């Protein structure tokens, strides 16, 4: 009778051990899943980062392009304007010099407006 009893208890203990193993496996699975989550998230993040970087690089390239074209446009415009100014100047300078010289010799002696002529 006691041998049977201890056999029974043995079987039950073994069953418990098996059960614990099964639960333990599940727990290990959980830990692994969390690690996987981090790893997969990182992968996705890196891909996203790369995509964004490419996008930005393209934008930068566009910017540089537009800046250069507008710069050279402005330079051309400035050059044209300078030429125009010089041409206009050469045309008109003589008249202005004559005006200046004319005013140098132009004299209009007047008594100061606050004074009155002294009558003898």
């Amino acid at each position, binding site marked *: 009778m006691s041998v049977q009893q201890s056999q029974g208890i043995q079987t039950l203990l073994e069953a418990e051990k098996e059960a614990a193993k099964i*639960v333990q496996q599940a727990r290990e699975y959980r830990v692994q899943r969390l690690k996987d*989550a981090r790893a997969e998230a990182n992968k996705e993040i890196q891909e996203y980062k790369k995509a964004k970087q490419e996008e930005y690089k393209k934008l930068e390239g566009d910017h540089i392009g*537009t800046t250069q074209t507008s710069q050279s446009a402005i330079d051309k415009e400035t050059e044209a304007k300078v030429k125009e*100014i010089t041409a*206009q100047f050469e045309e008109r300078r003589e008249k*202005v010099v004559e005006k200046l010289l004319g005013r140098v*010799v132009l004299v209009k*002696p007047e008594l100061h407006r606050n004074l009155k002529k002294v009558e003898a």
Partner: protein
Amino acid sequence: MSSRPLNDDEVASEMNKMVAFIKQEAHEKAREIKVKADEEFAIEKARLVKQETLAIDADYEKKQKQAEIAQKIARSTATNKSRLELLRAREQHLQNLFSDARERIVELSTDEGKYTQLLQGIIVQGLLQLLEPEVTVYGRKKDSGVLQTAADGAAKQYHEISGREVKVNTEASLSDEIAGGIKLINGTGRITLDNTLDERLKLLEDRMLPEIRTDLFGANENRKFYT
């Protein structure tokens, strides 16, 4: 409840039932853990991805804004540079013109009749500014001939205009290098008046700038206020 003790078969079957029950419970628990693990996996992954992508987006947003600002600055600098270049060109032309004029005022003293008249006018102008009883007129050495005539005429004209008397002395001691004109110094030697042609031109250069600008380069399109 059976009142008699169990036989061997019944014991074995009870044992099996118990073992099966224990295993069953273990499997159920394991399944629960696995399901929860999968859920947490999905949540954690989504959270991490979201967190980082938001940070990356913000980062690139900032970079983009900075690039835009840099572009605007570059454009503004270019426009500014262009404007300065135009101004520099105009200024250069202007100085050119002035030095031209400075060279040519020498010709103004060649016509003797006109020059004497000019001298008289200039002297009167000076006298009317000084309003002194005694004045010395300084002229160029080479003008010594016409200086006295001009001074006397000027004194008379001065009296006609202001009713005041003035004693005029002349001295032809200015350098012959200058273009012409006179300087006046009052009797006590304290007040000097420079009415030489060079000085007159200098004053004109300054005073006539707005007029010269419009004559040479046209009116300013951007100007809104004129007194």
